[in-house]
């Protein structure tokens, strides 16, 4: 085990998989000389050369389309879209190309593509602070991953690159510098974390908190506050994969705790939490003691000003409040 940052975990997974498999290539904007806007790909072009770490024009739709074609031609491309905000420009290629071809052409080929992109905020203003995981997670043909920890970032990225289907892999800018234990690669040992499995990261009896990415950390903090101040024992589940959702794990927990709080960072209206809620109320209606609670971004464009941003972003306090509403 080594203590590494989330950033290093992503970079390490990219590097190790590039060493293992020549078909893996990276492409994206400012990922070479610049080292990546969040410094994730730093050093990789120097190590692997510009045929495997490709600097692209600022052309998000073209990047994803190109990566789809490269995947069809036998490569394993990992395309970086600088932030998920810019992924809107590539949405057609993600939804109508990457996600569709396996089905639409009758299974003749698949598109083993990873689109790495980044969620987050921090005074970035209205157009650069959004997150759209719920949109991706609604598209048949995509798999969607949002790791919260360095270990999961590594294990899930390896699984994503090896997956024969298109995977949207969403990192979080505010997690890059967080550190955590990551297992050292051991030859012959499975190093992947399977796509589609959630993880119970804290056991509890009274309420289930479901989070992912940065909101997992908020949920964990809230769990500690609840334990200390309210004597409430919260179980915390890290969803890790958003498509497919590991409902058995969520449902099993709710059957014991009878209370559920969903923690996300996208807009409340139409956010991914709405979907989780829809599905869990269907599966757990009779188990629930109260309405499923959601913590989410307020339905407002993200304002630049620090004071305004603070008023919008979901926090662990809001998770605590949501639990208190139920108790």
């Amino acid at each position: 085990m080594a203590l590494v940052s989330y950033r290093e975990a992503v970079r390490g997974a990219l590097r190790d998989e590039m060493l293992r498999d020549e078909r893996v290539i990276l492409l994206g904007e400012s990922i070479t000389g610049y080292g990546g806007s969040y410094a994730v790909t730093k050093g990789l072009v120097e190590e692997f050369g510009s045929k495997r770490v490709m600097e692209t024009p600022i052309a998000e739709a073209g990047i994803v389309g190109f990566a789809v074609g490269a995947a069809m031609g036998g490569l394993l491309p990992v395309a970086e879209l600088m932030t998920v905000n810019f992924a809107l420009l590539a949405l057609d290629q993600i939804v109508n190309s990457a996600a569709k071809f396996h089905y639409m052409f009758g299974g003749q080929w698949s598109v083993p593509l990873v689109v790495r992109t980044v969620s987050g905020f921090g005074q970035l203003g209205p157009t650069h602070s959004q997150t759209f995981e719920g949109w991706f997670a609604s598209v048949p043909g995509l798999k969607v991953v949002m790791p919260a920890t360095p270990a999961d970032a590594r294990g899930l990225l390896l699984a994503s690159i090896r997956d024969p289907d298109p995977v949207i892999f969403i990192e979080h800018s505010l997690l890059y510098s967080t550190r955590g234990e990551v297992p050292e690669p051991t030859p012959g040992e499975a190093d992947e974390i399977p796509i589609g499995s959630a993880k119970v990261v804290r056991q509890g009896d009274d309420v289930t908190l479901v989070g992912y990415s940065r909101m997992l950390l908020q949920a964990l903090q809230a769990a500690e506050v609840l334990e200390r101040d309210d004597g409430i024992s919260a179980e915390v589940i890290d969803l890790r994969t958003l498509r497919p959702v590991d409902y058995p794990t969520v449902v099993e927990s709710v059957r014991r705790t009878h209370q559920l709080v969903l923690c996300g960072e996208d807009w409340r209206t139409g956010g991914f939490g709405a979907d989780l809620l829809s599905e869990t109320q269907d599966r757990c209606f009779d188990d629930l003691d109260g309405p499923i609670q959601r913590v989410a971004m307020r339905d407002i464009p993200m304002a630049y000003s620090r004071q305004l941003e603070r008023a919008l972003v979901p926090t662990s306090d809001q998770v605590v409040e949501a639990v208190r509403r139920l108790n």
Partner: protein
Amino acid sequence: MAASPGPRRVRPKRTVSRSVDPELPLGLTPAQCRHMYRQMVLIRRFEDHAAEAYAQAKIGGFLHLYIGEEAVAVGALNACRDDDHLLGHYRDHGYALARGCDPKRCMAELFGREDGLCHGRGGSMHLADASRNFWGGYAIVGSHIPIGAGMAYAMQYQHRDQVVLDFFGDGATGNGIFHEGLNMAALWNLPIIFICENNLYGMGATLAEESPVSEMKIKAEGYTMPSVQCDGMDVLAVYAAVREAAEHCRSGQGPVFVEALTYRFRGHSMADPELYRDKSEVQRWRSQDPIPRFGEFCVEHRVCSQKELAQINEEVEQLMLDAVAFADQSPWPDPAEVGRGIYAKPIDPEAGVAPSVSAVELARIEAEPEAKQAGI
């Protein structure tokens, strides 16, 4: 700016020498000529039957006919190798048939049957046959242009010598994705031939409504890409242009843009009331029909006799009757299977396995309250 002019006066000159055979240009053999003639007839008759089947509601949704443009696919695909990669847009029957796909399975796809090339999932707009490196018809205008560039990159990267042929229309050049794809192909010197079928209309928009320049080849010049124009109603002109382009590409000299001047004799799709163009314009272009034109050439050059041409027509007609019968009899896809094949590695939402671990591991995560900002 409504009706556009008739057949272009500018007929690009054949630059390739006729030295090989005093009778046949471009080093072509009589067999090759017969083959091309036959393919054009095959496409034409396939579509005549498809139009009929559409009228009988055996085919649904959209049906975009290639009638009038056959020389483009046939000329281009005969000018390159069978294992060169092929992508095209939704008006794709010609690509499939010129690449040698089974007309039966093509027709079955149009009929939405299990024996269709894509098992009825794609339909007319999405024929594909990966076993022949035909990577499909694409229906989001222009979307397959960067996809083709990506495939070309995969070839270059793997030191494989196949080139990519990527067909699209004049209308596609107005979409940004066209430029993003061309830019990348030029930047990375990729082995791809962009073939623009300039048929003067993008659905109901005239060329003058879509583009400030009437020659699509000009649009490639901003990417320092060699670009040529050819008469898309003349199968040999297309053949010559694409053969040269393929050589250029295959020898590592980068992408080429080929503009084929052509015309669709039918509406954009079956539902098109064709209010935007004059019947007389259509008539003028019909007089350039590539099939009789090449038929005459074949007879003149003693490739075959009129009778032999008629024989080809009959043979093809029989094949088409077979194809329709095959499609008619092919089973419907099983509705119970509709959810299969979304993923190559299926996901099972019921099968999540959550390793339940203690909080210890995660407690080691040290969250930094203010992470370093990126420099976007």
